[in-house]
């Protein structure tokens, strides 16, 4: 698409004076900038292993499988998370619940997340109808083999025990019963992932695809 002529700004090359031609003022100004950083030294480096970063509340790290108030795994093996997962890293095998669990029919027999394959997008968390899977603030999980990084149900439940009291990783719901999704009278309308404000320049380009000044 040709660019509309009213979107084009013609710039005249600035004239160069005697002092600019000698390069000296530019060099002196540059030196003043660099020296001012030396004399007014405020490092911004974070000494990582000693200083831990202050993570934002919405940080998406290692997953955990939540437990309900009776200490049972909340997951009902509905496969919504593994279906939503764009990286196909969640592997679930379902089984019937014991007879005394009257509030649900299914539970996961195995629940394995390949943390090396995961892209930490948080779609599983959004897809989960019963708040069983959540992303925590743990970012430094490592392993010696690829198998170490395949987190199974036991490991994911351990992550829950480790993080449930951390104020950064609140358990989103404390309701013991299941079926949150079924409690909605009407499902909430979908909003765009990133909304564009009305006064943003991306919202009112004179010609499509051209960013005006």
């Amino acid at each position, binding site marked *: 698409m040709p660019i509309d002529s009213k979107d084009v700004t013609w710039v005249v090359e600035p004239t160069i004076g005697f002092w600019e031609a000698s390069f000296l003022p530019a*060099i002196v100004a540059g030196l003043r*900038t660099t*020296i001012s950083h030396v004399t007014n030294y405020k490092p911004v480096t974070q000494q990582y292993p000693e200083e831990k970063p202050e993570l934002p509340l919405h940080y998406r790290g290692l997953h955990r499988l939540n437990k309900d108030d009776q200490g049972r795994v909340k997951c009902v093996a509905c496969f919504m998370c593994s279906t939503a997962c764009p990286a196909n890293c969640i592997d679930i095998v379902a089984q019937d619940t014991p007879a005394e669990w009257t509030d649900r029919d299914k539970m996961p027999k195995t629940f394995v997340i390949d943390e090396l394959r995961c892209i930490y997008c948080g779609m599983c968390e959004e897809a989960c109808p019963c708040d069983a899977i959540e992303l925590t603030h743990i970012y430094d999980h490592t392993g010696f083999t690829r198998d170490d990084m395949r987190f199974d149900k036991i490991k994911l439940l351990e992550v829950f025990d480790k993080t449930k009291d951390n104020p950064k990783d609140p358990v989103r719901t404390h309701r013991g019963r299941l079926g949150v999704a079924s409690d909605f009278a009407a499902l909430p309308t979908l909003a765009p992932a990133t909304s564009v404000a009305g006064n943003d320049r991306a919202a009112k380009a004179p010609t499509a695809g051209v960013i005006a000044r």
Partner: protein
Amino acid sequence: MTELLTTLITIGAVLGGTLGACSYLIYVERKLSAFMQDRVGPNRVGPYGLFQPLADGLKFLLKEDIIPDHVNKVMFLIAPTISVFTTLLAFSVVPFGDVAQSLDLAGLASLRFIIAPNVDIGIVFIFAITSLAVYGIILGGWASNNKYSALGSLRASAQVVSYEIPLGMSVLGIALMAGTLNLESVLGKQTGSIFDWNIWYQPLACLIFFTAALAESNRMPFDLPECEQELVGGYHTEYSALKFALFFLGEYTHVVTVSFLTAILFLGGWHLPFVAEAASAYPGVMFVKIGVLMLKVFLVIVFIMLLRWTIPRFRFDQLMGLAWKVMIPLSMANVVVVMTVKQFGINQWWLLPISLGLFAAAGAIGVASKQAELNQRSVTTH
């Protein structure tokens, strides 16, 4: 025998001093650049990272020394040694203290403050030897059998050969004024008072010399031979471990040599009013003189480092333009001015305003040509 021992001891002192200084200059540069960029810099090895140079040296020694299959082995191995060898050899005629004095070592030998005293062609010797450094670069690039290395070394040779001319021409004025090419005598002539320092008579030559010397040592505003952006690593792309360290050492030694020359040729060497003068004779004065010279050299080196992290790199045509269109004519004019002043016995102080005038004229010509270019461009586009 005594003479031989003296020379060997002096060589040992210079070699050890230069190599040690180089490794810690790298530390200083890394810290300084870190401060400029609001970083912390090396801080893991020892207090404030002070043992970082040792760790670096150890790493260079212990890393795998790769010689690629497709290279010309003999030339590949010779190139980095030439690079270090030439810059270290140039140091042999550079005085690093008051050469009239020497430190007696138990009557057996003494430590004098220059390796090879009374070399009457000192300045020529330095330029002859340091210009050989381009062989190290060309051989390194050519023997690597790698197009990036070859391109880097081609650029390097063009740059080094071009800047050799203003470098030599700018010192010619000083040689004319001093009437000698002997570095010791050039230094000795500046030790009368602070107004004997050559920078008062040759400020333009000092600027040209400093700039050309920066280009000679391939330092930052002129580091076209390496240019990580386009050429991977330039002529030393294929070098690893200790051979790369030798190239690096060559560059830093060159910076040290250049700073010594700047301090000796233009800034009065070891002379400092009231502290270290030719007549001062208090105990330990020779160490004070060395200290003064080292301080000046250190300040010049720090200035070079500041420039490195301040000025962006030249484009190659700008680099060549600066050498051939600006610095060579200016340095020639400077030599002519010095010759005129010497021939007709005019007061030497006239050199200061004339030098500044030459600089102003060059600036004016630059502005005028830029204006003409702009006018022509507006004619052609509209």
